[in-house]
């Protein structure tokens, strides 16, 4: 297994956290992982993304040109990354904030109403967990849902840890989608 994943959205959506969380979970399962955040002159509300590699083998290059998986949480991210997804790859897109369909027909595009479902689970800020839960459902080889839930305490900073109850519910909700 070798998956190059890009998580993308706007600053504040927990994009970097999604990547870190799945990395910790996969690492604890014995897989090799790498995580590189975008770190341009970023600002709140600007775009944020991170590149994650999860692999059974040693990771040669942690840099990703063409992701096999892309999770886009807002419209600018769809515009930016849709083209780069490998043919046959997976694109998860957040229809709560994206009102159009991906144009590629050579990839598997899966919509998710991440913000709306997160709101139903108690906090719109856990939209990233809805999307991540769905990703774990579609690509179970990346990491087990339980591993990701267990990794929340390390990945989430102390001041936000009280949200982990809702994060856990949201991961499970995303995982239950089909």
């Amino acid at each position: 297994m070798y998956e190059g994943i890009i998580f993308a959205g706007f600053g504040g959506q927990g994009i970097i956290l999604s990547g870190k969380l799945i990395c910790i979970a996969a690492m604890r399962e014995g897989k090799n992982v790498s995580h590189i955040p975008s770190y341009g002159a970023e600002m709140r509300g600007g775009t944020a993304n991170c590149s994650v590699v999860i692999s059974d083998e040693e990771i040669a290059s942690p840099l990703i040109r063409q992701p096999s998986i892309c999770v886009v949480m807002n419209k600018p991210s769809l515009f930016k990354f849709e083209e780069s997804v490998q043919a046959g790859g997976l694109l998860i897109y957040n229809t709560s904030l994206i009102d159009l369909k991906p144009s590629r027909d050579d990839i598997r595009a899966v919509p998710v109403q991440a913000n709306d479902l997160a709101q139903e689970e108690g906090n719109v800020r856990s939209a990233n967990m809805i999307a991540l839960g769905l990703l774990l459902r579609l690509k179970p080889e990346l990491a087990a849902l339980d591993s990701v839930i267990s990794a929340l305490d390390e990945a989430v900073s102390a001041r936000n840890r009280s949200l982990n109850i809702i994060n856990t519910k949201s991961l499970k909700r995303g995982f239950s989608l089909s």
Partner: protein
Amino acid sequence: MAETVLMKGNEVIGEAAIIAGCRYYFAYPITPQNEIPAYMALRLPRIGGTFLQAESELAAINMVFGASAAGARVMTSSASPGISLKQEGISYLSGAELPAVVVNMVRGGPGLGNIAGSQGDYFQATRGGGHGDYRTIVLAPASVQELADLTVEAFDLADQYRMVVVLLGDGYLGQMSESLKLPEPSGKEFDKSSWALTGASGRAPHIVYSLRLSPEPALEEVNLRLQAKYREIEKNEVRFDTYRSKDAEYLLVGFGTSARICKAAVNILRREGIKAGLFRPITLWPFPSLAIERAAGSIKKVLAVEMNAGQMLEDIRLALWTSTSSSRNVVIDFCGRTGGMIPDVDEIVERVRNYEK
């Protein structure tokens, strides 16, 4: 055995320095290495160390000079423009034969450049950077694990040879998180009692010089001693790594992040049956000239890959073109990107495929 953890490259440098016994860290912030000072600011005061954010890079490197002269393990870190500002101090440290670890998480240049990772400071790191006939040992890690291991090793090398050791990373390595096992302290001890400024009560004072006006050959004597030390280091401290290079017909040469890209290219080429291998210098000075000469003996072509316009390339040429063996005739090709751009795996693969035609 230490457990496997996920840590960011820059933070790993801080933690590894603490593991190595570094309790003094002086720096001035600059992207993309700000997690190092942030980490040291958090950790050092809790373990009896001193973190000080200096008013400038110049101040920081001279604080390093002071702590080192007093016998302490000390580190500073910066990124390219900040390292340029520290060159005067690095030359002084070299002239005074003081140990120190200087981390450069290279960003795009020249000038203030940008904040993306780059390898544009190879010349500066390996050729001295500051004035005078001096060398620094230059270590080039290619993974977060190696950032940790080489940081610990850098302190030992600095103390062993009483000189500056440069850890040459880049912005990507600093920002990247990977799984690693934190290293153990090496356990090596270095006796600094013959020169360190620890208070002269009951003994003759020690003096740390970097100005030697008279008698006349005094400065040359120091230089000769330094040069003898450098020759010894060239003999004993060369480090490199090879990957699938034994039966290779095409040898990719890269350090740091570029080497990771090369490794991915080698894997793709090998799957196609093309015999590609990787040679990765870990010490950029001393450069593994003999090793690369040997590795290139049965090679059809060498391809240097760098995140600059061809700097290590010159060391490869020096190594091969001055060789008396068959490797002097090897064709050396180059693939590089500048200004914070990264060479593409596919581009490298395509280049090597074309060698076959």
